[in-house]
């Protein structure tokens, strides 16, 4: 049914040594439990289901199972755009933890991606933070650089640094010290509706090869069918925006700094480079010139694109593998003829690699989350129960749970998760998973800087909005954004 020409694309991607090197900079790569140099859908399939792990036994070595303590824990939890399957796994995890460690009094609190940073920052100002926190990948460096976090490396919770993606380890490292353990890592993929492609006169089983093609396809879909072509997202203070614009920016050869290179220094600002402006121009062309994307892109986020896609009103978008499950959930809730329409869209869902830039560069945000332990002075009550915190971290970052907690929407932070039976089950049950795991080697982490949240959540979306609303020209918007990054890096007010 689905014919995705992955082989050639993946091969080319694997040869993109610069990007791969950026992700594989760990010295002990040869000894890694999963050989990242062989990364391909076939390799992932070959290792899936080859090893069993006893999570409780492994974590008992870190914190005895009869340990008595109390833990306050905040985490970025499921939100409205996640599938029900993931909700169930989160529920299962906390039930299992409480059963495994019956004497640890766990006070857990789930927060959405967009709320977590604000609430956590505020709590820190009042020394009222939780003992442990699971933050989005973007947040770790900010809090480590400010001295809020305790040094914490995978070895402290029973694993090896080589068990995790080197790119993910970069995101939890500040000034040479590791301050957290990755829980999950993800790369998104390109999704399209084959039926819409067909009706618009496009090849229904072929994703746009380049971002210039995305612009063309989007226009063609809009002109022929009167619906939105590409699901542009440009809302401010929403994580979805950088996750969708940065792959485009990097593919054109641009960037905020040199974060897309093998050894980034973050010294040179690139937002006003001709390549970055070309990427912004592509968004401008779709939104302003062709009017081929949702008008609501400036106030919407990805959760708003999902129902549009399911309603057959959107041709293409960047998203997680979990979107297939989200569509199934939404379809289950639909009634009458809507249910049939939704089924047609699901039957026509196709996943492919994210398009390249004009020079064949393919990129995607290397996303995910990390777990950290706070220093006692910033925690409510002034005490941190370290064994209890390490128990939950060991469990969440175990091969079993780092996979289960990322079952539908992401990938396990612990690479051994790819070897578990649940990975095998996942490959069989989650459609299109191959595509998103294939994107992993193209993943580029956000700049590991304390200023990154402001750059990604405010400055980059502002740049997009300034250009797309006509408040500034493309050149002015890019120059303005570069100037703001420069001021920010200079410690300006």
């Amino acid at each position, binding site marked *: 049914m689905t014919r995705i020409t992955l082989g050639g694309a993946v091969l080319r991607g694997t040869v993109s040594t610069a990007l791969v090197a950026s992700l594989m900079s760990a010295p002990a790569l040869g000894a890694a439990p999963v050989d990242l140099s062989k990364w391909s859908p076939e390799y992932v399939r070959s290792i899936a289901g080859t090893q069993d792990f006893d999570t409780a036994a492994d974590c008992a070595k870190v914190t005895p199972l009869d340990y008595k303590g109390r833990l306050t824990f905040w985490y970025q939890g499921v939100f409205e755009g996640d599938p029900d399957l993931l909700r169930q796994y989160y529920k299962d995890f906390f039930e299992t933890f409480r059963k495994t460690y019956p004497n640890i009094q766990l006070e857990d609190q789930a927060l959405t991606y967009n709320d977590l940073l*604000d609430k956590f*920052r*505020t709590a820190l*100002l009042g020394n009222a933070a939780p003992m442990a926190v699971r933050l989005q990948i973007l947040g770790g460096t*900010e809090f480590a*650089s*400010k*001295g*809020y976090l305790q040094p914490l490396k995978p070895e402290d919770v029973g694993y090896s640094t080589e068990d995790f993606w080197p790119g993910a380890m970069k995101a939890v490292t500040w000034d040479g010290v590791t301050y957290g353990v990755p829980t999950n890592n993800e790369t998104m993929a390109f999704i399209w509706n084959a039926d819409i492609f067909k009706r618009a006169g496009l090849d229904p089983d072929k994703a746009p090869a380049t971002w210039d093609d995305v612009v063309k396809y989007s226009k063609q879909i809009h002109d022929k069918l009167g619906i*939105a072509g590409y699901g542009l997202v*440009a*809302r*401010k*203070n*929403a994580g979805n925006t950088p996750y969708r614009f940065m792959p485009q920016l990097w593919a054109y050869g641009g960037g905020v700094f040199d974060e897309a290179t093998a050894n980034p220094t973050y010294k040179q600002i690139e937002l006003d480079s001709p390549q970055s402006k070309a990427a912004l121009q592509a968004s401008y062309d779709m939104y302003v010139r062709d009017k081929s994307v*949702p*008008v*609501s*892109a*400036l*106030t919407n986020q990805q959760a708003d694109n999902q129902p*549009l896609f399911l309603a057959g*009103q959107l041709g293409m978008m960047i998203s997680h593998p979990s979107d297939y499950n989200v569509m199934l959930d939404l379809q289950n809730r639909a009634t009458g003829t809507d249910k049939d329409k939704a089924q047609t869209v699901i039957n026509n869902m196709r996943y492919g690699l994210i398009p390249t830039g004009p020079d064949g560069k393919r990129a995607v945000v290397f996303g995910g989350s990390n777990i950290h332990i706070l220093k006692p002075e910033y925690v409510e009550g002034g005490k941190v129960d370290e064994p209890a915190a390490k128990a939950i971290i060991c469990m969440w970052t175990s091969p079993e749970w780092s996979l289960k907690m990322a079952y539908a929407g992401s990938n396990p932070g612990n690479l051994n998760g790819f070897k578990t039976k649940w990975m095998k089950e996942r490959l069989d049950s989650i459609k299109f998973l191959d595509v998103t795991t294939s994107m992993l080697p193209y993943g580029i982490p956000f700049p590991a800087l*304390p*200023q990154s*949240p*402001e750059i990604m*959540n*405010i400055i980059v*979306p*502002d740049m997009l*909005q*300034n250009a*797309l*609303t*006509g*408040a*500034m020209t493309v050149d002015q918007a890019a120059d303005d954004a570069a100037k703001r990054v420069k001021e*920010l890096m200079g*410690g300006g*007010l």
Partner: protein
Amino acid sequence: MTILTGKTGTRGGLRPLLRKIWEHRADYAYVLPAIAVMLIVIAYPIYYTVELSFFNTPPGLQLRDKIFVGVDNYTAILSSEIFWKVTSNTLIWTLASTFIAFVLGFACALALHRDFVGRGVLRAILIIPWVISAVAASYIWKWIYHSDFGIIGAVLVQFGLADRPPNFIDSVSTVLPSLIVVNIWREFPFAMIMMMAGLQTVPDQLLRAAKVDGANAWQRFWHVTFPHLRNVSTVTILLLAVANFNSFIIPWIMTGGGPSNASHIWITHIYELAFGRQRWGVASAYSVLLFLILMMFGYFYVRALSGNERKDGSA
């Protein structure tokens, strides 16, 4: 209860003042807990905000490592383009919302003041926007306005009144008026209730006497009703203005201040500076300026209330 004025204290010296305080020690004891709470939750935050407004707080530093910059935050604010844009948005938002909500509320109050069948039901219906959650209302209006699939757009397209749905909240030119409409919808019932209460105080015999003297409806309203409502109108307008100056939920939820800062008002901008960008110092300086402006409103509010009390006392 006895009100001690400065005049009393200075005329009689410190000793009589202290004696009076001692005589009323029980009264002071009763209000002491409230004053203590006020000091903790109001006075200290105000002091800390003022202090913080003289510091730079770069995102790479903890708040305790803040850098003293004197009045630089204030000069940076006043010399920034965004300040003037946000101030202009705030003034438009506050004045338009306050004026239109008041006029609409007043008109509804006048209409509902008459006796007619279904008045009670209509009054209950009109109060609904004010009693429902602002958060829920914001999300509902966001979908009503949705630039691609909003209800308004769908109706206009369905009836052939527009080729494509109008762009309400994704355009820099229409976003603020669109949000103001939502705010007015939320607030006019408050003005209506206040003015309905005020209308109860207008003496019937005066209106009847004016009618006997040949005054028409407009003359009765202008010369009899309105003068009686002057104070309640002032208070209503001031309360609406203060609420609008401090309004956060509707613009933040519906647009987050966007697109391109076109719907940022002071309070949303302060929130973004503080929590999104961690510019606690600049955000504090903004807050101090906002506090001073609101204190002016507070002054006029107290004056209006005092005016009422004096009138009541002399009547």
